[in-house]
Protein backbone atom coordinates (compact mmCIF):
# COMPACT_ATOMS: atom_id res chain seq x y z
CA UNK A 1 0.00 0.00 0.00
CA UNK A 2 1.02 3.61 -0.47
CA UNK A 3 0.99 6.51 1.97
CA UNK A 4 1.21 10.17 0.96
CA UNK A 5 2.50 12.82 3.37
CA UNK A 6 1.37 16.36 2.54
CA UNK A 7 3.94 19.14 2.88
CA UNK A 8 2.57 22.62 3.60
CA UNK A 9 4.88 25.58 4.15
CA UNK A 10 5.62 25.22 7.87
CA UNK A 11 4.92 21.48 8.21
CA UNK A 12 7.62 20.03 10.46
CA UNK A 13 6.56 16.47 11.21
CA UNK A 14 6.46 15.47 7.55
CA UNK A 15 9.79 13.62 7.71
CA UNK A 16 8.88 11.92 10.99
CA UNK A 17 5.77 10.53 9.30
CA UNK A 18 7.77 9.54 6.22
CA UNK A 19 10.41 7.87 8.38
CA UNK A 20 8.07 5.66 10.41
CA UNK A 21 6.20 4.48 7.31
CA UNK A 22 9.34 3.77 5.33
CA UNK A 23 11.77 2.30 7.86
CA UNK A 24 9.54 0.96 10.63
CA UNK A 25 6.33 -0.04 8.85
CA UNK A 26 8.25 -0.78 5.64
CA UNK A 27 5.53 0.45 3.31
CA UNK A 28 5.64 2.70 0.26
CA UNK A 29 5.45 6.41 1.04
CA UNK A 30 5.81 9.65 -0.91
CA UNK A 31 5.42 13.35 -0.30
CA UNK A 32 2.54 15.41 -1.69
CA UNK A 33 3.20 19.10 -2.36
CA UNK A 34 0.55 21.56 -1.18
CA UNK A 35 0.41 23.25 -4.59
CA UNK A 36 -0.40 19.98 -6.39
CA UNK A 37 -3.89 18.60 -6.79
CA UNK A 38 -3.17 14.97 -7.54
CA UNK A 39 -2.72 12.44 -4.74
CA UNK A 40 -0.51 10.12 -6.86
CA UNK A 41 -2.61 7.06 -6.21
CA UNK A 42 -2.15 7.04 -2.41
CA UNK A 43 -4.25 4.71 -0.27
CA UNK A 44 -3.88 6.91 2.80
CA UNK A 45 -3.09 10.61 3.10
CA UNK A 46 -1.29 11.93 6.18
CA UNK A 47 -1.68 15.60 7.11
CA UNK A 48 1.36 16.02 9.35
CA UNK A 49 2.04 18.19 12.37
CA UNK A 50 3.74 21.55 12.29
CA UNK A 51 2.81 25.17 11.85
CA UNK A 52 1.34 25.40 8.36
CA UNK A 53 1.44 29.01 7.13
CA UNK A 54 2.90 30.04 10.48
CA UNK A 55 -0.45 29.35 12.22
CA UNK A 56 -1.50 32.77 10.90
CA UNK A 57 -5.13 33.75 11.50
CA UNK A 58 -6.02 30.43 13.17
CA UNK A 59 -4.22 27.08 13.12
CA UNK A 60 -5.02 25.31 9.86
CA UNK A 61 -7.15 28.18 8.53
CA UNK A 62 -4.94 28.99 5.52
CA UNK A 63 -3.81 25.43 4.74
CA UNK A 64 -7.44 24.48 4.31
CA UNK A 65 -7.50 26.48 1.04
CA UNK A 66 -4.31 24.96 -0.45
CA UNK A 67 -4.79 23.32 -3.89
CA UNK A 68 -4.00 19.82 -2.53
CA UNK A 69 -7.07 20.07 -0.26
CA UNK A 70 -9.40 19.84 -3.26
CA UNK A 71 -7.88 16.45 -4.05
CA UNK A 72 -8.23 15.45 -0.41
CA UNK A 73 -11.91 16.49 -0.29
CA UNK A 74 -12.65 14.29 -3.33
CA UNK A 75 -10.55 11.43 -1.94
CA UNK A 76 -12.28 11.54 1.46
CA UNK A 77 -15.69 11.77 -0.19
CA UNK A 78 -14.96 8.49 -2.02
CA UNK A 79 -13.96 6.79 1.24
CA UNK A 80 -10.17 7.32 1.02
CA UNK A 81 -8.29 7.24 4.33
CA UNK A 82 -7.14 10.59 5.71
CA UNK A 83 -5.34 11.01 9.03
CA UNK A 84 -4.59 14.45 10.43
CA UNK A 85 -2.04 14.60 13.24
CA UNK A 86 -1.82 17.71 15.44
CA UNK A 87 -1.72 20.58 12.90
CA UNK A 88 -3.22 18.07 10.45
CA UNK A 89 -6.17 17.63 12.86
CA UNK A 90 -6.52 21.42 13.06
CA UNK A 91 -6.61 21.61 9.24
CA UNK A 92 -9.30 18.90 9.04
CA UNK A 93 -11.44 20.89 11.50
CA UNK A 94 -11.02 24.13 9.56
CA UNK A 95 -11.79 22.26 6.35
CA UNK A 96 -15.02 20.91 7.84
CA UNK A 97 -13.95 17.31 7.22
CA UNK A 98 -14.29 16.84 10.98
CA UNK A 99 -16.68 18.71 13.30
CA UNK A 100 -15.61 21.19 16.00
CA UNK A 101 -12.72 23.62 16.38
CA UNK A 102 -9.51 24.14 18.34
CA UNK A 103 -9.07 26.79 21.01
CA UNK A 104 -5.81 27.88 22.63
CA UNK A 105 -4.67 25.46 25.38
CA UNK A 106 -6.27 26.36 28.69
CA UNK A 107 -2.74 26.92 30.09
CA UNK A 108 -1.94 29.22 27.12
CA UNK A 109 1.34 27.33 26.94
CA UNK A 110 2.94 25.12 24.34
CA UNK A 111 2.56 21.64 25.81
CA UNK A 112 5.16 19.05 24.84
CA UNK A 113 5.04 15.78 26.79
CA UNK A 114 4.12 12.12 26.85
CA UNK A 115 0.43 11.48 27.41
CA UNK A 116 -1.78 8.41 27.59
CA UNK A 117 -4.84 8.00 25.44
CA UNK A 118 -7.60 5.45 25.69
CA UNK A 119 -8.87 3.73 22.56
CA UNK A 120 -12.67 4.11 22.67
CA UNK A 121 -13.36 2.82 19.19
CA UNK A 122 -11.47 -0.16 17.80
CA UNK A 123 -13.73 -0.50 14.75
CA UNK A 124 -12.10 2.22 12.66
CA UNK A 125 -9.48 1.87 9.92
CA UNK A 126 -7.04 3.62 12.29
CA UNK A 127 -7.53 1.49 15.42
CA UNK A 128 -8.50 -2.01 14.28
CA UNK A 129 -5.24 -3.43 15.69
CA UNK A 130 -6.15 -2.14 19.16
CA UNK A 131 -8.40 -3.57 21.85
CA UNK A 132 -11.23 -1.42 23.16
CA UNK A 133 -10.05 0.55 26.24
CA UNK A 134 -6.40 -0.12 25.40
CA UNK A 135 -4.14 2.67 26.65
CA UNK A 136 -1.51 4.04 24.27
CA UNK A 137 1.50 6.13 25.30
CA UNK A 138 2.04 8.81 22.66
CA UNK A 139 3.46 12.35 22.93
CA UNK A 140 1.67 15.66 22.33
CA UNK A 141 3.28 18.95 21.23
CA UNK A 142 0.94 21.86 20.58
CA UNK A 143 -0.45 25.23 21.70
CA UNK A 144 -3.94 24.85 20.22
CA UNK A 145 -5.29 21.46 21.23
CA UNK A 146 -8.20 22.57 23.36
CA UNK A 147 -10.93 20.81 21.40
CA UNK A 148 -14.30 22.52 21.36
CA UNK A 149 -17.67 21.57 19.92
CA UNK A 150 -21.22 22.77 20.63
CA UNK A 151 -23.39 20.79 23.04
CA UNK A 152 -25.46 19.53 20.15
CA UNK A 153 -22.31 18.57 18.22
CA UNK A 154 -20.94 16.67 21.20
CA UNK A 155 -24.18 14.74 21.49
CA UNK A 156 -23.90 13.71 17.85
CA UNK A 157 -20.25 12.66 18.27
CA UNK A 158 -21.29 10.39 21.12
CA UNK A 159 -24.37 8.99 19.40
CA UNK A 160 -22.34 8.07 16.35
CA UNK A 161 -19.33 6.71 18.28
CA UNK A 162 -16.97 9.24 16.70
CA UNK A 163 -14.81 9.90 19.76
CA UNK A 164 -11.87 7.60 19.09
CA UNK A 165 -9.39 8.68 21.81
CA UNK A 166 -9.66 10.29 25.26
CA UNK A 167 -6.73 11.59 27.32
CA UNK A 168 -6.39 9.34 30.36
CA UNK A 169 -4.12 8.14 33.18
CA UNK A 170 -1.57 5.36 32.48
CA UNK A 171 -4.23 3.00 33.87
CA UNK A 172 -6.94 4.36 31.58
CA UNK A 173 -8.82 6.65 33.97
CA UNK A 174 -10.39 9.59 32.18
CA UNK A 175 -10.04 12.59 34.47
CA UNK A 176 -9.33 16.33 34.05
CA UNK A 177 -5.99 15.69 35.83
CA UNK A 178 -4.78 13.89 32.68
CA UNK A 179 -6.05 16.50 30.24
CA UNK A 180 -3.01 18.35 28.78
CA UNK A 181 -4.86 21.19 27.06
CA UNK A 182 -8.38 21.67 28.42
CA UNK A 183 -10.01 19.75 25.57
CA UNK A 184 -13.74 19.22 26.06
CA UNK A 185 -14.29 15.97 27.98
CA UNK A 186 -10.63 14.96 27.43
CA UNK A 187 -11.19 14.43 23.70
CA UNK A 188 -7.87 13.60 21.99
CA UNK A 189 -9.09 12.24 18.64
CA UNK A 190 -12.27 11.95 16.60
CA UNK A 191 -13.36 10.48 13.29
CA UNK A 192 -16.03 11.48 10.75
CA UNK A 193 -19.37 9.72 10.32
CA UNK A 194 -18.01 7.45 7.58
CA UNK A 195 -15.00 6.66 9.80
CA UNK A 196 -12.46 7.19 7.00
CA UNK A 197 -11.13 10.52 8.32
CA UNK A 198 -9.35 10.70 11.69
CA UNK A 199 -7.93 13.67 13.56
CA UNK A 200 -5.75 13.26 16.63
CA UNK A 201 -3.60 15.68 18.63
CA UNK A 202 -1.00 13.16 19.87
CA UNK A 203 1.82 12.21 17.47
CA UNK A 204 1.87 8.46 16.69
CA UNK A 205 4.73 9.04 14.22
CA UNK A 206 6.91 10.08 17.17
CA UNK A 207 6.23 6.84 19.03
CA UNK A 208 7.51 4.17 16.67
CA UNK A 209 10.66 2.94 18.41
CA UNK A 210 11.52 1.85 21.96
CA UNK A 211 14.55 4.11 21.99
CA UNK A 212 12.18 7.09 21.55
CA UNK A 213 10.13 6.06 24.59
CA UNK A 214 7.22 4.13 23.09
CA UNK A 215 6.24 1.96 20.16
CA UNK A 216 2.52 2.50 20.61
CA UNK A 217 2.25 4.78 17.57
CA UNK A 218 2.72 1.67 15.45
CA UNK A 219 -0.79 0.51 16.37
CA UNK A 220 -2.28 3.38 14.36
CA UNK A 221 -0.19 2.76 11.24
CA UNK A 222 -0.51 -1.04 11.50
CA UNK A 223 -4.29 -0.61 11.67
CA UNK A 224 -4.29 1.49 8.50
CA UNK A 225 -2.12 -1.07 6.69
CA UNK A 226 -4.33 -3.96 7.86
CA UNK A 227 -7.45 -2.13 6.71
CA UNK A 228 -6.12 -1.25 3.25
CA UNK A 229 -4.66 -4.71 2.61
CA UNK A 230 -7.84 -6.44 3.79
CA UNK A 231 -9.86 -4.27 1.44
CA UNK A 232 -7.56 -5.06 -1.49
CA UNK A 233 -7.94 -8.83 -1.03
Amino acid at each position, binding site marked *: MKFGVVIFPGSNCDYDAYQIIKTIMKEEVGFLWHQDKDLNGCDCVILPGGFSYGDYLRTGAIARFAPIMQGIFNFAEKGGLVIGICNGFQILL*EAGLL*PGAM*LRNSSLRFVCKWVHIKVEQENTPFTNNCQRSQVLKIPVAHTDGNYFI*SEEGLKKLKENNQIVFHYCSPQGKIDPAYNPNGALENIAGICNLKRNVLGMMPHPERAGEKILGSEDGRYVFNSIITFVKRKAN
Partner: protein
Amino acid sequence: MSKEKKSYQATVYVRLKEGVLDPQGTTIKRALGDMGYNGVEEIRSGKFFEVSFLSANRKEALKLVNQISDKLLANPVIEDFKVEI
Protein backbone atom coordinates in the same frame (compact mmCIF):
# COMPACT_ATOMS: atom_id res chain seq x y z
CA MET B 1 -19.29 56.51 -14.87
CA SER B 2 -21.77 54.38 -12.96
CA LYS B 3 -19.81 51.21 -13.81
CA GLU B 4 -16.63 52.52 -12.29
CA LYS B 5 -15.59 50.79 -9.09
CA LYS B 6 -15.11 52.75 -5.92
CA SER B 7 -12.73 52.15 -3.08
CA TYR B 8 -14.21 50.88 0.19
CA GLN B 9 -12.75 50.35 3.62
CA ALA B 10 -14.32 47.83 5.93
CA THR B 11 -13.55 46.79 9.48
CA VAL B 12 -14.30 43.25 10.54
CA TYR B 13 -14.51 42.47 14.26
CA VAL B 14 -14.07 38.81 15.18
CA ARG B 15 -14.75 37.49 18.65
CA LEU B 16 -15.36 34.17 20.34
CA LYS B 17 -19.02 33.26 20.61
CA GLU B 18 -20.74 33.58 23.94
CA GLY B 19 -20.28 30.40 25.89
CA VAL B 20 -16.96 29.56 24.24
CA LEU B 21 -14.15 29.68 26.79
CA ASP B 22 -11.55 32.37 26.19
CA PRO B 23 -8.30 31.27 27.89
CA GLN B 24 -6.55 34.50 26.83
CA GLY B 25 -9.28 36.71 28.30
CA THR B 26 -9.23 34.72 31.54
CA THR B 27 -5.46 35.06 31.85
CA ILE B 28 -5.56 38.82 31.14
CA LYS B 29 -8.24 39.22 33.78
CA ARG B 30 -6.09 37.36 36.30
CA ALA B 31 -3.10 39.60 35.46
CA LEU B 32 -5.25 42.68 35.96
CA GLY B 33 -6.19 41.34 39.40
CA ASP B 34 -2.47 40.91 40.20
CA MET B 35 -1.98 44.54 39.13
CA GLY B 36 -4.57 45.66 41.62
CA TYR B 37 -7.54 46.13 39.27
CA ASN B 38 -9.93 44.00 41.24
CA GLY B 39 -13.17 45.35 39.84
CA VAL B 40 -12.74 43.75 36.42
CA GLU B 41 -15.53 41.21 36.02
CA GLU B 42 -14.74 39.78 32.62
CA ILE B 43 -12.38 40.23 29.69
CA ARG B 44 -13.13 38.76 26.29
CA SER B 45 -10.40 38.94 23.67
CA GLY B 46 -10.93 39.27 19.93
CA LYS B 47 -9.37 40.68 16.79
CA PHE B 48 -10.20 43.02 13.99
CA PHE B 49 -9.24 43.30 10.34
CA GLU B 50 -9.11 46.38 8.11
CA VAL B 51 -10.05 45.45 4.55
CA SER B 52 -9.58 47.86 1.61
CA PHE B 53 -10.99 46.89 -1.75
CA LEU B 54 -12.77 48.03 -4.93
CA SER B 55 -16.46 47.45 -5.42
CA ALA B 56 -19.29 48.64 -7.67
CA ASN B 57 -21.48 49.83 -4.79
CA ARG B 58 -22.00 49.61 -1.06
CA LYS B 59 -24.32 46.64 -1.26
CA GLU B 60 -21.82 44.59 -3.25
CA ALA B 61 -19.04 45.69 -0.92
CA LEU B 62 -20.96 44.51 2.12
CA LYS B 63 -21.75 41.21 0.46
CA LEU B 64 -18.10 40.59 -0.33
CA VAL B 65 -16.82 41.41 3.16
CA ASN B 66 -19.46 39.23 4.78
CA GLN B 67 -18.47 36.40 2.47
CA ILE B 68 -14.74 36.56 3.21
CA SER B 69 -15.42 36.94 6.92
CA ASP B 70 -17.61 33.85 6.96
CA LYS B 71 -15.24 31.79 4.80
CA LEU B 72 -11.88 32.77 6.22
CA LEU B 73 -11.55 35.63 8.73
CA ALA B 74 -13.80 33.96 11.29
CA ASN B 75 -14.43 30.31 12.10
CA PRO B 76 -18.22 30.14 12.54
CA VAL B 77 -17.89 27.12 14.85
CA ILE B 78 -16.35 29.25 17.60
CA GLU B 79 -16.46 32.86 16.44
CA ASP B 80 -18.94 35.63 15.59
CA PHE B 81 -18.08 38.56 13.37
CA LYS B 82 -19.41 42.05 12.76
CA VAL B 83 -18.73 44.12 9.64
CA GLU B 84 -18.57 47.92 9.55
CA ILE B 85 -18.17 49.72 6.26
